[in-house]
């Protein structure tokens, strides 16, 4: 049963601990699909696939949308948002260094000018 209510990465990792769910993510990475299609691809019952998709949905890895009688699944945004935050932290680390490097390079430029004037 679905039992992953903790937010964040823990839920993501728990959701990813299952081979079928990882396969579903790979499949959705290629293109969105209905639960019926996924159930067919993974040779499962609709109920079984719905449970897997439910776990992925709670982890924020998949979003679903029901149109008429068809529930369509695609990759969720959480993973991408987190990655964007990570990249921003990385960028800030280098920005900090490079701003300091600017100061060092300016000193070198000044020194060269002074030395050249002698």
């Amino acid at each position, binding site marked *: 049963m679905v039992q992953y209510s903790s937010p964040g990465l823990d839920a993501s990792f728990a959701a990813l601990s299952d081979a079928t769910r990882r396969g579903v993510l790979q499949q959705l990475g290629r293109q969105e699909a209905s639960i019926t299609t996924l159930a067919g691809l993974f040779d499962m019952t609709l109920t079984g696939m719905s449970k897997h998709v439910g776990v992925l949905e709670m982890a924020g890895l998949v979003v679903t949308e029901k149109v008429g009688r068809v529930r369509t699944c695609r990759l969720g945004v959480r993973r991408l948002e987190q990655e964007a935050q990570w*990249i921003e*932290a990385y960028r800030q*680390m*280098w920005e*900090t260094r*490079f*701003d300091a*490097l600017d100061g*060092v*390079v300016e000193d070198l430029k000044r020194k060269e000018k002074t030395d050249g004037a002698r």
Partner: protein
Amino acid sequence: MERDETGGKHRTVAERRSDRELVVRRTFDAPPRLVFKAWTTPELLQRWWAPRSSGARLVDCQLDVRAGGAYRFVFGLQDGRSMAFFGKYLEVVPDARIVWTNEESDEGAVSTLTLEEQDGRTLLVLSELYPTKEAADRSIEGMEEGMPEQFEQLDELLPSLG
């Protein structure tokens, strides 16, 4: 959080170019040879790699900047711990390109620095290529824990160092 040009600073741009590769770019108002010098001279490197305001100080710094040469920095942190970075240079083209390994961990990246002259300025591109996607993921995740507030404070202090 884009920094604008009001401070006269150039923007630092970072992107994940592929599963395994992180890339940072930045322009400097100086020719490549000065940026190269600041990158390869221990006393200069110390001033920007871990700025004074970070509380870290360089307790050991050895750079043998040539292909096959080794480097090792040891930083002493405020809480008494120290942090070592080491590896070796794979390729060195003066004023233009340095490639080195990062051997602190089994899954360290290979870093490539290129300095390209553009109208008297330098376009710096630093690429870090990890052995696997997972290693790149872990490296970025670790960063998120270590950086945020600390570095925001640092950001505010830095202009006074320039």
